[in-house]
């Protein structure tokens, strides 16, 4: 627009009888937002006080109040305001407008939200973007946050949105979805073994809750898919803790023994100060091993409650393991040297735990008792054989997972052997 434009083509708003405090200032502010400095806004008004209020407001906001150019039309007032050059908000880029994400079969899938600025994944996230959702334009001068994980290479995962969708679809209710009413009385030794296993599972799941929770707070929100997925993992673990504890309490037993060795092993997971190492130790090695443990519990469960608990928790854990496998595989593909770091993490943890005893003996025994259906001499050998099979299976599957993320077979076997006897 130039100064010779006619009044007819000038940006114009009709404020009718609005007073300043009833919305006139808002109306004018938003209209000026659409103009460039130096452009003139025309305001039609029937409110006598508008003249005084707008003139004062213009001065405060460094817009130029122009003298009314012509006689008011048909009793109405006409004002002209020239937009000033002081920017109302300081932003380094234009805000998105006109974005339309795709809705498929009535669903807005999280995988389809890469639209507009939200689709731009930075190589390194900006600390000053803080908690703004990716795609928002953050005001200049915003404070720097102190997130630790800010590199795309470490925090971004192409499949995170996919896993997040699976997780939200797979949520279940620990009070309702476990067939608690089908609980039956068990042989005391068998019940004791189940209660001991539930105690152990719950304490392990606390570590599986706290470790991702700790990393959520350290990962830059720019990589929101990863953060959202990890939050579902935290939610899953909360539900697992809930049902394991409930199972220990529901049938005349109660929560049992927690060993120093288990606590030391789990503490060493929480103490990890590197996201990829922590994720590797927890999800690939720890939760991976847990998949075999939960399948074992499901197979040998003496009643439908324990069976359903083991089945449902295993499905959730499978998702956590797959997310970590996908994530670490892609990280290692981009940066093969990180393999050395992961190997060192296993060695360091093994060395840190070398002074503590192995698996809680009561767990070791409970696994055999569970598989034997009690302490009957007839079935104990079978239980012990099943337990040996479980341990062999755990090692075999750990090796497979390590190979899947890029380790050579012999490295994988060596690392698996050094994994904590505590399983997690």
């Amino acid at each position: 627009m130039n100064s010779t434009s006619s009044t007819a083509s000038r940006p114009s708003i009709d404020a009718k009888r609005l007073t300043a405090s009833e919305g006139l200032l808002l109306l004018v502010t938003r209209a000026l937002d659409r103009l460039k400095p130096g452009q003139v806004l025309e305001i039609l008004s029937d409110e006598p006080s508008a003249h005084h209020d707008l003139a004062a407001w213009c001065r405060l906001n460094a817009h130029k109040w122009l003298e009314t150019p012509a006689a008011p039309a048909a009793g109405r007032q006409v004002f002209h305001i020239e937009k000033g050059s002081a920017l109302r908000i300081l932003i380094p880029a234009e805000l998105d407008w006109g974005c339309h994400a795709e809705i498929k079969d009535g669903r807005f899938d999280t995988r389809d939200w890469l639209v507009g600025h939200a689709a731009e994944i930075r190589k390194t996230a900006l600390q000053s973007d803080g908690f703004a959702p990716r795609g928002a334009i953050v005001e200049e001068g915003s404070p720097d946050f102190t997130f630790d994980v800010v590199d795309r290479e470490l925090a971004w995962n192409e499949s995170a949105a996919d896993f997040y969708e699976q997780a939200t679809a797979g949520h279940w209710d620990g009070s309702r979805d476990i067939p608690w009413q089908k609980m039956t009385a068990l042989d005391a030794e068998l019940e004791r073994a189940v209660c001991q296993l539930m105690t152990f599972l719950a304490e392990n799941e606390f570590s599986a809750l706290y470790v991702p929770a700790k990393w959520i707070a350290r990962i830059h929100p720019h990589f929101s898919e990863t953060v959202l997925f990890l939050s579902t993992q935290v939610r899953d673990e909360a539900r697992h803790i809930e049902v394991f504890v409930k199972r220990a309490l529901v049938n005349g037993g109660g929560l049992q023994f927690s060993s120093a060795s288990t606590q030391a092993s789990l503490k060493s997971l929480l103490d990890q100060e590197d996201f990829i190492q922590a994720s590797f130790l927890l999800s690939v090695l720890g939760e991976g091993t847990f998949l075999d443990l939960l399948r074992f519990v499901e197979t040998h469960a003496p009643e439908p409650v324990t069976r359903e608990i083991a089945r449902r928790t295993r499905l959730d854990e499978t998702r956590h393991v797959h997310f970590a496998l996908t994530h670490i595989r892609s990280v290692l593909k981009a940066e093969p040297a990180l393999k050395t770091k992961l190997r060192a993490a296993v060695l360091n943890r093994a060395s840190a735990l070398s002074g503590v005893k192995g698996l809680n003996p009561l767990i070791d025994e409970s696994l055999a008792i569970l598989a034997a259906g009690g302490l009957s001499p007839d079935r104990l050998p079978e239980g012990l054989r099943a337990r040996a099979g479980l341990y062999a299976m755990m090692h075999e599957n750990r090796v497979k997972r390590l190979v899947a993320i890029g380790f050579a077979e012999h490295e994988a076997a060596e690392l698996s052997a050094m994994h904590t006897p505590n399983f997690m």
Partner: protein
Amino acid sequence: MSKAILVGAVAYDPKVVTIWEMIKEYFLAAGIPNDFVLFSNYEVQVEALLSGFIDVAWNTNLAYLKVFRRTEGACGVLAMRDTDVGFTSTIVAGTGTGIESLQGLKGKRFAFGSRDSGQAAIIPEYFLKQYGIDSTKDITPVRFDLDVGKHGDTGTSEVEVVNAIARGDVDAGAVGDQYWARALSEGLVDSRKVKAIWTSPGYCHCNFTVPRKADEARLKNWTDVLLRMDYNNPAHRKIMDLEGLKAWIRPQMEGYSVLFEAVDELDFFNR
């Protein structure tokens, strides 16, 4: 290292400390040794400027006038805010009073802000007189003499003016346009109860006063650095938002004549 330039300002609000700490840092970053002193009122600040204790005073128009008269016009001015030019006083009235113009004020109860506030007392009283309304005869004046010595900076008396009208205790009153615009923007005014009916001609408000004209050249570097402050720079914006400006500008002195005339016309210093 040259001697630090000492600037005086009046502490009318706790935020003044924040403002001046930031301004001090701003000048230090530009390589200008400087410091500030806060006074509790403009009268002592004026004395400190005239005695040479401070180099520069951040003055209201009334404080500037005092320095001007005391130095017999030998003082100088370095800079002002963009918002110090074209300052106006707004006459506001209760919507139920039927007052729609200055003439409608006759016989009514009229509220002024602090007696040393240029925008809410001295200048509006002067303009009313120009328009044939003598505050000693034609209206019943009600004065809110709050924070005297701070020349209306705190705005508390203007809040009282608007509230008194809204309550119906008075029919109309005077406020500065800056307070009025802020009150409207922040929703502090109910326009069903209180509305603006008249805006005064423009005049000038604050400035950085120096005791001698020659100081304008001596402190040129300080002034140039001040004028470089940019509202579109986030660090500068913090200072400017707190101090209420979008740009520092060179002095525009013609707008001060209004207050000079008003003070004389009302015999302000002798009444």
